[in-house]
């Protein structure tokens, strides 16, 4: 396990009035507990505004979490004595030098490469900056390393002395990836790296990311709203809705047997590029509720087609249903319990 979050929360304050008093909170990430294994690609799926980007940024401490713990690459022997782990290895409490050292090992690739690259910096400076900041290389060696990185992502020495606007979207995203690779990180957060790109270029970038993962044993957190992309690249998928994880499973398990009603609706809504397949569609009513004032109990209950009274009263926990499949839904749990007791029909047979 390379990364673990425990009950991670990030609330944005809403200020109002003449004294900028806090009048409310946007619960962007509301109690997320996740584990990411070394070398895997975990897909984080959800609609816009569900808190997936905030979660990714909080992991890297680009945003300070409101509460909760982040453990990044805690050594095995520490894990035994939990008390120590709580205090000394919680990334959420890191400061200064320790934080900087940790950041060297986690990097992020942002959604829109045209805004994540500085338009006034040459490519060699952009890609070399992390190396300089962390003091990993200087002078000629820096030059060599930058070229090496560019070669890895499929660019050449011709591109060294150019500015971002001279590149196409796909090439820019390659540069952003090269920059993320510069410090040889263990974990890369990919925040919608292909959603600004065309399909044919998207395929190039996805293939590149897969190759890099194999080559360097990288761990990815792949944040996206595009379900077919996430199915292609991820080993496990976490589905997020309004700041909470509603379902977590292996990719195959999730696509073959989605349990949470939100996941079912989400999967049935994907337009499949094959006219022969006309799947039955569960169309959700209404819009995502506001995260300022989320519904009580299960946050999905306002749009859910199997909501009951129970859903209004209690917040469902993420519970394992075997085979690494976790669901946060009262109704699914009560359903899955049924087969455990042989029903009358079974007895008759």
């Amino acid at each position: 396990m390379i990364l673990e979050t425990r009950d991670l929360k990030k609330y944005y304050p809403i200020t109002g009035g003449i004294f900028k008093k806090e009048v409310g909170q946007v619960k962007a990430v509301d109690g997320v507990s996740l584990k990411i294994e070394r070398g895997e690609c975990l897909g984080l799926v959800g609609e816009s505004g569900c808190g997936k980007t905030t979660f990714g940024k909080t992991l890297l401490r680009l945003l300070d979490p409101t509460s909760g713990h982040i453990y990044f690459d805690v050594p095995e022997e520490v894990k035994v004595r939990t008390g120590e782990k709580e205090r000394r290895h919680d990334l959420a409490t890191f400061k200064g030098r320790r934080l900087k050292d940790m950041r060297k090992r986690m990097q992020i690739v942002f959604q829109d490469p045209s805004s994540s690259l500085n338009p006034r910096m040459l490519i060699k400076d952009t890609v070399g900056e992390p190396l300089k900041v962390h003091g990993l290389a200087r002078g000629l060696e820096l030059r060599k390393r930058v070229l090496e990185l560019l070669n890895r992502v499929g660019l050449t020495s011709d591109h060294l002395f150019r500015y971002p606007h001279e590149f196409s979207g796909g090439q820019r995203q390659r540069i952003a990836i090269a920059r993320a690779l510069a410090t040889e990180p263990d974990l890369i957060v990919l925040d919608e790296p292909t959603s600004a790109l065309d399909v044919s270029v998207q395929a190039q970038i996805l293939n590149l990311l897969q190759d890099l993962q194999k080559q360097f044993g990288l761990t990815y957190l792949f944040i996206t709203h595009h379900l077919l992309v996430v199915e292609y690249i991820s080993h496990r998928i976490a589905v997020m809705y309004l700041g909470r994880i509603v379902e977590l499973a292996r990719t195959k398990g999730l696509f073959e047997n989605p349990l949470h009603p939100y996941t079912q609706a989400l999967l049935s809504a994907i337009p499949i590029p094959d006219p022969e397949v006309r799947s039955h569609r569960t169309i959700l009513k209404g819009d995502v509720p506001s995260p300022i004032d989320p519904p009580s109990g299960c946050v999905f209950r306002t749009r859910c087609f199997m909501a009951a009274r129970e859903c209004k009263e209690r917040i469902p926990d993420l519970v394992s249903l075997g085979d690494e499949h976790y669901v946060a839904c009262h109704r699914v749990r009560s359903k899955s319990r049924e087969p455990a007791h042989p029903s009358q029909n079974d007895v008759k047979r």
Partner: protein
Amino acid sequence: MPKLLEVEDLKMNFYTYEGIVQALDRINLNVREGEILGLVGETGCGKSVTALSILRLIRPPGRIEKGKVIFRMKDRLDESKQGMNLLDQDEVFMQKVRGNEISMIFQEPSAALNPVYSIRDQVSESFLLHREKELCQKALKRIEEDIKKETFFLKKAILKMERGIYLKMIENPSSFFLKFLSFIPGVRRYNRRVLEEAKIESIEILRILGISHPEEVVMRYPHELSGGMQQRVVIAMALACNPTLLIADEPTSNLDVTIQAQILDLVRKLRQEFGSSILFITHDLGVVAEMCERVVVMYAGHIAEVAPVRSLFQKPLHPYTQGLLKSVPRPGRKDRLQSIKGSVPNLISPPSGCRFHPRCPSVMTRCSGAKPSLKEIEKNRLVACYLYHQETEKNDT
């Protein structure tokens, strides 16, 4: 099926400082009555520009060089029913066509709506522009009812005067008398009943589009609505006058999948209800597979292939379509994606001949020469590629 819209040899350029961008080059397509035609391609291949050219909404530095856009209208404007070339018509005529006969759903709903006008104002605008007479007649009926109900003689007299004004409005909406009235305080807002009727119509169409509490929504401003709602309002504006042809320019690409599913479902229902033909522009092949009956594939300002949707996905003919279909992740398949090498060419100096030839896996020497024309290979299937031209030529000899 009869053809509703025919675009013939359309060519348009943008005259920029860096050079002439040849955005569209010899575009040929047709939309048949009652069908959904998909227009697919990557960013910058000229999909939206084609739509704008049809509506003559191209602004300088863009200019339509040559070509024809032949449109067969419903009875209202065109007596001959032969179809007329929209590129020859004057601006006044085009304003009658836009929103009335051909209307468009724009890509970004938050940009397509004016932030300083309420939803009511924006949706009723198209009613007021194209259906003023009908609204006046409805208002007149209401005045008659009011006259019958009213007992106090003075109010009755005022209502009768109002009836006079409305009769005048139906008769000649641009008369000097009405212009004169609009300067007099007190009677300046003589047309408020028409606005009221337009509001009722707007509420009605929003209700058809599945917005709950349309009476309240109609008084709000665009920023108060979510993306899905905004898109519904934009669709309402487009459908207000029951157009013959609806151009939907990436109506769902900024929306979430669940909202996208709602909107697509809606568009499909509306087509059955209103019977409009739809030109559906998108880059999402999944949406194409779901929505369209025929597909036009565009690449760098050229049309690469035209085919019915099933045969396109089963057996894509043009190498670009093949590459495009291979690069899409599909459900349940984990094999490596195959991408098209290289990137989209700059249209200031496009490659000679077939614009796809520098990236094409099966390129021949002929490809860089003259541009291959669209040829019918099978029934309803047109391809612009020399690979297939050879076959037909061999068959001929």
